[in-house]
């Protein structure tokens, strides 16, 4: 009896979570510009229409550049911050971590407005570079949260052993630390990439004439006849996200197996 209730609950819950997402591909292939049931027919038209939209291609390219740049920047900054905070004690450490982690909890609208003010005060032009700055700011706390656990799992005597065997600190980082925290670095890159890719508020405030993909999509929603194309675009983004998540999990499992570690974390 109670088992049946639990099963029902689980099914309803899963539907609630994922059914809306399934509407995306359904309408992306529907041969009608009106988003409503019943479906009228099957078509690839909306996907073709994407290839003709130059603005869309520009936005997608902007998004990819911004996501790549800010994920790399955020991961590098996080590497520096975590190796300092996990390994060393110094005055003001707690405060420093706090200040770095704050953007994770601040409403994005506040970050967006303040960064816009700063950029305008500094006399800078709004461009993809200002968006990269904003995205690096919000991605860094996530990267730190991921890398912190990688660093904490790393036995400090491995680094000491490397120093003891005659390697310099830099070569120790290159030969021991980096390979061993690589799963964390990969996760950090992929997650920061995903966060940047679908971030809207900050990108909206900081983009000038070069919109990102979410900003472009938002601008298209004003035109009802463009909605099916947006659905097609959404379908592609959905596939990309699933692909990235799968890739990061496959990489993580492979490295856990390769290092013979016990797999303590499930899929994130």
């Amino acid at each position, binding site marked *: 009896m109670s088992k049946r209730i639990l099963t029902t609950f689980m099914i309803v819950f899963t539907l609630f979570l994922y059914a809306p997402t399934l509407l995306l591909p359904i309408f992306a292939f529907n041969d009608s510009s009106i988003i409503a049931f019943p479906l009228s027919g099957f078509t690839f038209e909306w996907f073709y229409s994407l290839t003709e939209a130059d603005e869309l291609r520009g936005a997608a390219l902007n998004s990819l550049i911004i996501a790549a740049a800010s994920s790399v920047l955020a991961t590098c900054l996080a590497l520096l911050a975590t190796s300092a905070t996990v390994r060393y004690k110094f005055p003001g450490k707690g405060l420093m971590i706090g200040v770095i982690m704050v953007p994770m909890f601040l409403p994005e609208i506040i970050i967006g407005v303040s960064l816009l003010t700063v950029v305008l005060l500094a006399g800078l032009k709004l461009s993809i570079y200002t968006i990269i700055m904003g995205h690096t700011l919000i991605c860094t706390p996530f990267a730190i949260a991921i890398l912190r656990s990688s660093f904490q799992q790393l036995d400090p005597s491995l680094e000491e052993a490397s120093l003891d065997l005659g390697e310099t600190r830099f070569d120790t980082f290159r030969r021991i630390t980096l390979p061993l925290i690589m799963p964390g670095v990969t996760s950090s890159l992929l997650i920061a990439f995903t966060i940047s890719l679908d971030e809207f508020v900050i990108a909206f405030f900081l983009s000038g004439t070069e919109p990102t993909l979410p900003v472009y999509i938002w601008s298209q929603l004003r035109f009802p006849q463009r909605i099916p194309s947006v659905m097609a675009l959404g379908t592609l983004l959905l596939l990309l996200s699933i692909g990235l998540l799968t890739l990061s999990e496959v990489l993580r499992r492979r490295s856990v197996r390769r290092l013979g*570690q016990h797999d303590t974390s499930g899929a994130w």
Partner: protein
Amino acid sequence: MIELSNIEKHYGSYHALRDVTCHIKEGEFFSLLGPSGSGKTTLLRTIAGFEGIDSGSVVIGGQSMAGVPPNKRPTNMVFQSYAIFPHMSVAQNVAYGLRAQRLGKTRTTEMVTEALGKVGLAGYGERAAHALSGGQRQRVALARALILKPKVLLLDEPLSALDRKLREEMQSELRHLQRSLGITFVLVTHDQEEALTMSDRVAVMFEGEIAQLDTPQALYKRPASKRVAEFFGAMNILKAEILGLKGGIVTTRIEGLGVAEIPLGPEADTHGGNKYCAGVRPELMTVLDDGESAYPKENPAIVTDVEYRGELTYYDVKFDGSDTPVVVSMRNTTNREIKEVGQKVRIGWENASAVLLLEQT
């Protein structure tokens, strides 16, 4: 080989090393023995260069180590966790430190093969490091350190993670390795038996200080203080009153035993108001049979407990006029009878059975 002079070290308000001075000779097997928190590992890490010191000096092979980082010191270390690099094969682990020497592939392979042979892991080179057992990891850690031909090999509790049988095997193997290579070994351990069986000399540490430094035999036979005495095997501690000192011999009245003339210990100092007690090892007293009189001194006592252990019998006895229980161990020879609880016996001993022990240090 290693000169440690007046080393002081604090962690915040915690005094980790107090005025540590000792000289480790070339080619000796030296042990730092002490309970956890005694500063023995901190001292080892100081020699390796992982810990800075507040004052004092570390000199290795005639060269001051002030400001010399671990990677530039003529020491190599076997870590307690072994610190085997998990993303490398056994051979890559062993060859790790050779990179800087640019020996070329053939020479490196030769040296790795030789080093693995020395520690009994010939043919294990291609194994993944994480597929090894505890004992094998330890051997890889040894090979990885020894391949660099260090002047000093530092070992941080290398046997504590192994089971008893393997530990005993590794003890004698380490000893043989040290003798055949002639390298100075410095071992950190909390196991007194390990320190006794393996070392040429042992420094016993308590609370950041070297309490006594001597050969294993001397430490066992003539411990300077109560703490050191209790750390090595069993020791009966009895109240003692110093009656006089003449020519290095202390006349002492020992609780239950009476007056004894004991040679003054190496580091004992009867001046300065220190408190002393007397120590007598269980095996240095004899429960006498009737009519037996092989000992210069005898005291009447009563047996309060008997513990038969095959090879030995342990007696708990109380001397007349004393409430302190004293343990006497007897070898069970063919003609010796086992005494019973409540039996009145005579305990035989001599001056050399007793040592004078400092209460604190």
